[in-house]
């Protein structure tokens, strides 16, 4: 087990390094002038060449790329992460202020997706191709097709017209004001959770149907256990392994999905910050946020892999 953990962590470190290079390459080396982003195409043409060079030097963009890259790595290691083009707040401060909200949304959505997806899958798998199974399969296929941000907009509209209700727009943590915090968080968490639940229900259903055919399940039935006990204690634990892995992959879906969904709800989380950075073409903020999101995604997936290796010894020896 320890050697597996070490191997996985070493791969993870290489991936993090690779990710940082890809992020840097995409945002710095690809064409697109940051000064056009800051001053706008019109303002940019009015700048003299000297002024342009001055701004570039001030932003540290005129150094060789390799120097810029190592400076950024240094920024990451010291935790300052650089500044936005447009705001005085440093990126690290922004993450500290907005991050908890998005993390909360992600966590609640994952819990919701399991709470909804697994029971639906069990009901489906107990009677495959029955009326209930077909209904739940159609609903999960429908949820795969519905864009989360559209669902979010519909929910906002429905609450507004139906009940005259709008979630508070302030950024409050759970510990200062739990009630308004939950009102902010529950909408995005619900939308993202349902999107994941659809994937989880599909995967858990097919995984359960496969496990139910195995010999040991037949043995359990043959010794006279009732159907529910067989499913809950014998079939389900084994059927859930691929679902755990899927849930890790779906975290990418949550992290990315939180950007348009937070925009649609007007939630003041990190996703919204990413949206602002994109619409302002703010390269420094983008670079750090994209890196942060990918690192979180990679680390959580390592955690998921370790969990499944812990649950299933066969994985460790592969």
């Amino acid at each position, binding site marked *: 087990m320890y050697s597996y953990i070490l191997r996985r962590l070493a791969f993870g470190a290489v*991936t993090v390094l690779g990710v940082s290079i890809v992020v840097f390459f995409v945002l710095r080396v*690809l064409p697109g002038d940051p000064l056009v982003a800051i001053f706008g195409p019109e303002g940019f043409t009015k700048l003299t060449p000297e002024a342009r060079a001055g701004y570039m030097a001030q932003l540290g963009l005129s150094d060789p790329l390799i120097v810029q890259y190592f400076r950024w790595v240094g920024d990451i290691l010291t935790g300052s992460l650089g500044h936005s083009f447009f705001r005085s707040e440093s990126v690290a401060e922004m993450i500290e202020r907005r991050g908890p909200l998005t993390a909360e949304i992600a966590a609640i959505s994952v819990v919701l997706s399991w709470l909804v997806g697994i029971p639906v899958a069990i009901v489906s798998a107990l009677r495959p191709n029955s009326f209930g199974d077909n209904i739940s399969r159609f609903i999960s*296929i*429908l949820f795969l097709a519905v*864009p989360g941000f559209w669902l979010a907009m519909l929910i906002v*509209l429905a609450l507004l017209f139906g009940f005259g209700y709008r979630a508070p727009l302030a950024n409050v943590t759970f510990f200062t004001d739990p009630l308004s915090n939950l009102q902010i968080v529950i909408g995005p968490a619900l939308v993202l959770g349902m999107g994941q639940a659809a994937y989880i229900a599909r995967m858990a259903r097919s995984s359960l149907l496969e496990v139910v055919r195995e010999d040991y399940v037949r043995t359990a039935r043959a010794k006279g256990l009732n159907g529910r006990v067989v499913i809950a204690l014998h079939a389900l634990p084994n059927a859930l392994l691929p679902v755990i892995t899927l849930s890790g992959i779906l975290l990418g879906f949550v992290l990315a999905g939180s950007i348009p969904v937070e925009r649609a709800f007007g939630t003041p989380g990190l996703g919204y910050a990413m949206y602002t950075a*994109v619409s302002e073409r703010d390269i420094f903020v983008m670079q750090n946020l994209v890196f942060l999101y*990918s690192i979180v995604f990679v680390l959580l997936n390592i955690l998921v892999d370790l969990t499944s290796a812990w649950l299933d010894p066969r994985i460790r020896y592969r």
Partner: protein
Amino acid sequence: MSITQPDATLPLARIPAVERSWLLRALRVLRTFARRSPMSAFWGCVAAGIIFMAVAAPALAPRDPTRADFRHMAKPPSELNWFGTDQIGRDTLSRVIYGSRASLTVAAGAVLLGTTFGALWGLACGYFGGRFDIISQRFIEFLQSFPDLILAMAIAMALGVGMGTVIVAIAITRIPFGGRVIRAVVLSLKELSYVEAARGLGASHLRMMARHILPQCVAPYLILATTHLGVAIIIEAALGFLGVGIPPPTPTWGNMLADSLNAGLVPPWWLVLFPGAAITLTVLAFNLLGDGIRDALDPRLRGAV
């Protein structure tokens, strides 16, 4: 069986050669498909309808999608404008119809580019193996460490807005999927005896890949491509919604949803409902068609793609 019943082959021989033309053969395949899974056939028709809508947009749209009409601004659905108008009086129905063009072009372009490149790469990885494969797998892993929308956003932002950019950005996020699936298929194919026989006969690498391995990859590729069309459409819409998609005034479903948020404090419901419903219907149609194609061509790939 054919030895005991030699007559069984006779009716086939009596069919004139003309009747076995590719068109009829295609029709027959489609008929069998429809009979086996009517649901998928239905959604296939919906998908075909949406494609037709995109191609025939100028004939179908009641008005010019970019023409503002200041006498009818932000009007709810009426007899004049079935889907209402936006804040500068553009007809929502026409914009939804024209929006299908952008969505389908981007999705088809991204899948053709990304999935195909990924598939060919996966083919090479699986076939050659060794160091090339190991390095390629690491690279694919880097690409997969980004949630796909975030990678597409970063690339689209770095390259600057435009349809070509959006296609490239989404295509890059599709590469790992094509690579992984096709590589796995090729790895299992390589062990088959007919491939070994071809190698024994002295076939070159290129010939081996093109004549013996590639044809077996067509089914998984088709399934993968149809499924990813839906994903590409959703990513395109999200990019448009976040303002890094195809720039206005080109009507796209994502742009329309983003516009509706700028229409005032409260977005009018018709500006939200119709473009989103169009996205959902299109993605649903392509996903269910993809499921049907998978079940028809290769049910073993269930769950893999």
